[in-house]
């Protein structure tokens, strides 16, 4: 895992920024339209899942495949 240290840090940075943007947008939407709360939450969770998948691929799948 040592040889991937900096790369994993950058991956965490990118995923963190992406998740933060989703949370920012969703919270702003929920504050402006509280009646659409349920639908916004569902869309937010789907977007979370897609960002999370990229991060998981970077951290757990790619190092394992590169090692052999």
């Amino acid at each position, binding site marked *: 895992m040592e040889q991937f240290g900096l790369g994993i840090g950058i991956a965490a940075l990118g995923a963190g920024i992406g998740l933060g943007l989703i949370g920012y947008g969703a919270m702003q939407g929920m504050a402006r339209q509280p009646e659409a709360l*349920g*639908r916004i939450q*569902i869309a937010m*969770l*789907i977007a*979370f*899942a897609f960002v*999370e*998948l990229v991060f*998981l*691929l970077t*951290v*757990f*799948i790619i190092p394992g495949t590169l090692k052999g």
Partner: protein
Amino acid sequence: MSFWGLAFYVVLVLAVILGTMAYAKTGLSDRVFKNPLTRLYEHVYIFVKNLCVSIIGPHGERFVPMMFTFWIVIFVGNITALLFPTSPTADLSFNLGMALIAVGYVQYAGIVSQYEHLRHEGVSAAAAIPKAIFRHLMHFTGPRLPLVLIPISGLIFVVELISEVMKNVSLSLRLYGNIDGGHQAADAMNKLLYDYYIPVGAFLMPIKLLTCIVQALIFCLLTCVYISLVTHHEEESHDTKEAHAAAH
């Protein structure tokens, strides 16, 4: 994980689900449910039903049994990861099998929906089946384009087929990565104070519990979204509008 290791955990999860469900079934009655397990299952059922109806639309109730099964199997499998060294959902083969079932069920739902649409139009039962399959395949070619742009439709077809295969990969890898990643993170945190016999990784348990619920929810949610994409028809949107108008 070895074959028998996986088999042990799958049987464990199935035994827990079937045992609790059999016990919950004894509490069924015409009036108020007094059995706490029956009440719990009723709440889970209502939750999954609301999820299906809110995403797929008014015709989403028929997909509740499949979604409920996915939800229960994934949730109990994830909870197993908290109490045991490993779990079925921390193994890629189990997740890939479940994702294949989910995507295959989406194709089945799309064909059945087209079939019922054709039967509604008055096509005979024997002629409707190949037509329904053809219409479902035409669904992959995107919007109807003029004759000059037919090659574009072919390209869209290829891209849609690839995306259909990648749905399996994304569904299974997401679940596997989250559960197995949680294990690896707990291991890494346990190593921090290993010399003093303090299991720091145990503090990750609340986050792992949250992950369990969210991952089961996401799997069902995405399957519902895929189903809603293939079973959407014109007149049903009219029904939705009328239902909304009636609700207001």
